[in-house]
């Protein structure tokens, strides 16, 4: 079977063993689109059952919007898995994620994942997040395969993602800002990425998308949060102005103070690296998940103990947990199993 190494949709190259493009999720092993559209029989509306869905995705009978590919996405590669879901209260998924596996110059494997959450008060937040993960994944892949140090690879990726999202504000496309009468900001999103290579984990973030470390044995080792939000609540707590519980209960709690986009005052990418000495998983996620289990110990309770060997199942369960808890926002989580070398 011929192996494609370039995604035909987003034109990024991927390893030969990849089954799906890590950025757009397109299957790399099945022939792309046109055939399915041409041969497909009438699409049946998920809302009213009418076999009359227009090509633009709206039912010709009830007007209902049909599920979009981004509403729910699951991907898994050796060493990393991710799930993203629209949730219950938003009409589209403004989160995006990418997973990839690559090879360092020394021959060791490296895996990485990126999760971005579109800022809903900005224009085209769904495009912002998709653009950011695509740019970051491409940048990380080329930096890591060249042998760049993961921390600097991560900072470069955040820079590339920021440039790509900023460019959206200047692409001259209508962004609905005038049409809807909303005073929307330029396209914007938050960012969190994780690289696992040669026994070390490197995290990079901007905004309130988070990373957590959850060991297999939670009695012997504490789970903890790896990121510090760029948010009003985090700033207030850090400055000692308010206790944590009070700050997070405040209506302003989720106002973010850092993001990628043309309106961002300055780009301040944060990175952190650590070398785990016990087996466990790194989670990176959007606030659609951590809103329901903010503390690392609370979140760890929802992470199955075999998450390291069943990362996709762990990610699926975490998304289900957030949906069951109300699913108020889009939910995205990626799980990177970590096994320290003996």
């Amino acid at each position: 079977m011929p192996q494609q190494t370039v995604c035909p949709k987003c034109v990024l190259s991927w390893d030969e063993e990849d089954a799906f493009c890590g950025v757009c999720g397109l299957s790399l092993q099945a022939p792309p689109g046109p055939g399915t559209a041409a041969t497909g029989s009438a699409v049946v509306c998920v809302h009213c059952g009418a076999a009359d869905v227009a090509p633009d995705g709206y039912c010709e009978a009830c007007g209902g919007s049909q599920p979009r590919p981004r509403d729910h996405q699951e991907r898994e590669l050796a060493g990393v898995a991710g799930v993203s879901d629209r949730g219950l209260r938003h009409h589209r998924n403004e989160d995006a994620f990418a997973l990839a596996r690559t090879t360092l110059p020394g021959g060791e494997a490296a895996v990485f994942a990126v999760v971005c959450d579109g800022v809903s008060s900005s224009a085209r937040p769904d495009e912002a997040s998709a653009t950011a993960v695509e740019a970051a994944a491409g940048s990380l892949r080329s930096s890591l395969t060249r042998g760049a140090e993961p921390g600097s690879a991560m900072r470069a990726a955040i820079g590339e993602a920021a440039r790509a999202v900023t460019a959206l504000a200047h692409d001259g496309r209508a962004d609905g800002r005038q049409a809807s009468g909303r005073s929307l900001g330029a396209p914007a999103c938050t960012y969190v990425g994780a690289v696992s290579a040669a026994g070390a984990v490197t995290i990079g973030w901007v905004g309130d998308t988070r990373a957590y470390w959850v060991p297999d044995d939670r009695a012997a080792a504490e789970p903890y949060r790896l990121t510090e939000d760029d948010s009003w609540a985090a700033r207030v707590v850090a400055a000692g102005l308010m206790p944590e519980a009070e700050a997070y209960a405040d209506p302003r709690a989720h106002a973010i103070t850092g993001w990628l986009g043309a309106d961002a005052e300055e780009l301040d990418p944060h990175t952190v690296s650590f070398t785990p000495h016990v087996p466990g998983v790194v989670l990176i996620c959007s606030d659609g998940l951590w809103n329901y289990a903010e503390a690392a110990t609370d979140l760890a309770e929802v992470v199955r103990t075999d998450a390291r060997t069943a990362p996709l199942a762990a990610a699926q369960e975490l998304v289900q947990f957030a949906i069951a808890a109300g699913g108020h926002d889009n939910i995205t989580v990626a799980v990177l199993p970590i096994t320290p070398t003996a």
Partner: protein
Amino acid sequence: MSVSRPNFAVDIFQNEYLAVGAREVNAIVTVTASGAGTGAVPAQRAGQHPAGHEPGDGSAVVIMIDCSGSMDYPATKLQNARKATAAAIDTLRDGVAFAVVAGTHEAREIYPATGRLAVSSADTREQAKQALRKLSAAGGTAIGTWLTLTDQLFRSRPEAVLRHAILLTDGKNEHETPAELEQALARVSGRFTADCRGVGTNWNVPELKKIAGALLGTADIVAEPDGLAEDFRSMMTGAMNKSVADVALRVWTPANAVVKYVKQVAPEVADLTARRTEAGPRAGDYPTGAWGDESRDYHVCVEVPSAAVGNEMLAARISLVLPLPDGTTEVLSQGLVRAVWTDDLASSTRISPQVAHYTGQAELASSIQEGLEAHRAGDLDRATAKLGAAVRIAHATGNDGTFKLLQKVVDVLDPKEGTVRFRNNVSAADSMTLETRSTKTVRVKK
């Protein structure tokens, strides 16, 4: 002759976010036609007629001149009507089919008086102007008969697809019943468009606006007869610049939705809601008449079944459609009106500035009409309140044209609050001008 149909673009302005349980979706639809050639020939007629004295042009115009007895009081009215008609005839391109009709309690062909439309050339234009001497004032007013004859004349040249009429009257429609006029309008609406003008101050504003509305044209007052020639020339130029006829706004709505209204809101308010003709499942066509290079705005209001938070629905699919000779229609452009239910109040409580603006402009028009009606009925309090509201809206939205017309009828004490006092001795011309032009709107301030 260069031939081109304009390109149509549809832009939708709305706040698609609805609160839980909300059902009403409002959108402003901006339709812009651009790139029409100077040739002004509808595309489907292109090349079908050789040059010469056949109406290969595709355009036809009939001018209806009121010749009731009152047109002689003062005599300048009829003299100016003749001059204005001559000016309009001079504006005709070669090849345009045309005729002149004299209207009294019956309709009479003045030119060419052959039961058909003439074809414009230097000769026929000269003959037509000579024939205007036959316009003489005697008799009553039965506008329905004028419209009926005009329709017959247009039918003599079915190849002319851009059919436009100019109607001039100086009096009320007194020599037929309102029902007879109504029936005539129902028969001819959709057959041709018409701009209507009232000369002097003895005609009835709502009546003439109704005729113009049914025929998708403008209504205006020409208080001073010597202003007629310029007005006729500009109406004729407007008609000559149209290049595609019978364009309709097609509104598709989902099952169990109701179209509450469809209104043109710029350049003038015109309610099209009752003009719907069914066009397939859940779709209806609203006539917009003929188009040249121009832009118009429509306000579409749809009530859809409510859906749960997080759902998105297509509330309306708005298309601009053109009927083709083979009975099918061509979609010229399309836009989507969406509904998204959210529990984010910051999103759902916003009103689209375009929707808010035109809701105000429609209220401005109705306030003026209701205010003047109350004034006629002797209810000065209500009239003052209504015109005060009109002043407030005109001031706030920058509708300077209407504001100036209001100032001729009321003294404005506080434009922000809409505090006004009726002026003493308001002239009939000023009052009628305000009423006739009450539906003129301005676009959203940039």
